[in-house]
């Protein structure tokens, strides 16, 4: 194996990967205030995150985002599944939770990934 190729590959990966920065992630998608509505009805219950600084916290505080945004996104995912399948949220929630351990979606035929 040519060390120069390894070096070039590492450099290219690093340059590409470093295009993702915290600032760019936060800047590219400022969360609209209505997302707080989804957070407030998160399935696991808990405190009401609504408040004057809630939107600012969601945009700037990663820990807060983890705490509130993930459940909100989960609720949104359930809503998406429900809309797509036109089924009640309970059934959709079961579907949304169905792929265990992050298994990739299956082809209609259920074929595994091919290397080619």
């Amino acid at each position, binding site marked *: *194996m*040519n060390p120069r*190729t*390894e070096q*070039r*590959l*590492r*450099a*290219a*990966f*690093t*340059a*590409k*990967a*470093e*295009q*993702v*920065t*915290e600032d*760019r*992630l936060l800047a*590219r*998608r400022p969360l609209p205030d209505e997302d707080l509505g989804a957070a407030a009805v998160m399935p696991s219950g808990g405190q009401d995150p609504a408040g004057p600084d809630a939107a600012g916290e969601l945009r700037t505080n*990663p*820990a*807060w*985002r*983890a*705490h509130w*945004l*993930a*459940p909100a*996104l*989960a609720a949104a*995912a359930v809503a998406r599944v429900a809309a797509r399948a036109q089924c009640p949220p309970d059934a959709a929630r079961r579907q*949304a*939770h169905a*792929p*265990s*351990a*992050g*298994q*990739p*979606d299956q*082809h209609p035929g259920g074929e595994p*990934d091919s*290397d*080619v």
Partner: protein
Amino acid sequence: MTVFSEGVRTPGPDREAGEQVLEAPVPLDLAALYAAHRLPLARFALLLVDDMATAEDVVHDAFIALQQHQSRLRDPAAAVGYLRTTVVNNCRSVLRKRQTVRRHLSLVRDSHAEAADSELLLAATQQEVLAALRRLPRRQQEVLALRYWGNLSEAEIAEALGISRGAVKSNASRGMDKLEAMLGASR
């Protein structure tokens, strides 16, 4: 140095090495995991899916999956591995859907035209390497990204991709051989 730090672990009861875990699962500190791993995982996902918005979605979906399935995780220290595997699987799903869309609707690089723009920011030599990389089979791209960007061991790559260590070695070796041939031929 590993890009994927394993340093953030959820506090749990002290255990002797190898001691069997019989008690209830220790709750994960998702906020700490998110703070420590969102960025490196998004960077890794970008190398596979090639656009930042999708990379971010893929990582968020992985955290959602972890949150939903955390009760099944016996060992909190396995959370990072779980996230990594989920990101790989989510990226595969995204790429497969893109392929299907292109095949049926003849859309070429529609949803990730941004990738072309972002590559303009890279040096010509880096663009050349990444273009050659994309011509490799997907599994070889994944192995090379985890090895040469993530600095993961063969065992960790095998776990993340759900393949044997032998398959990791052969995919890395074949991938590098092809890459060398392509980059050599383009000079």
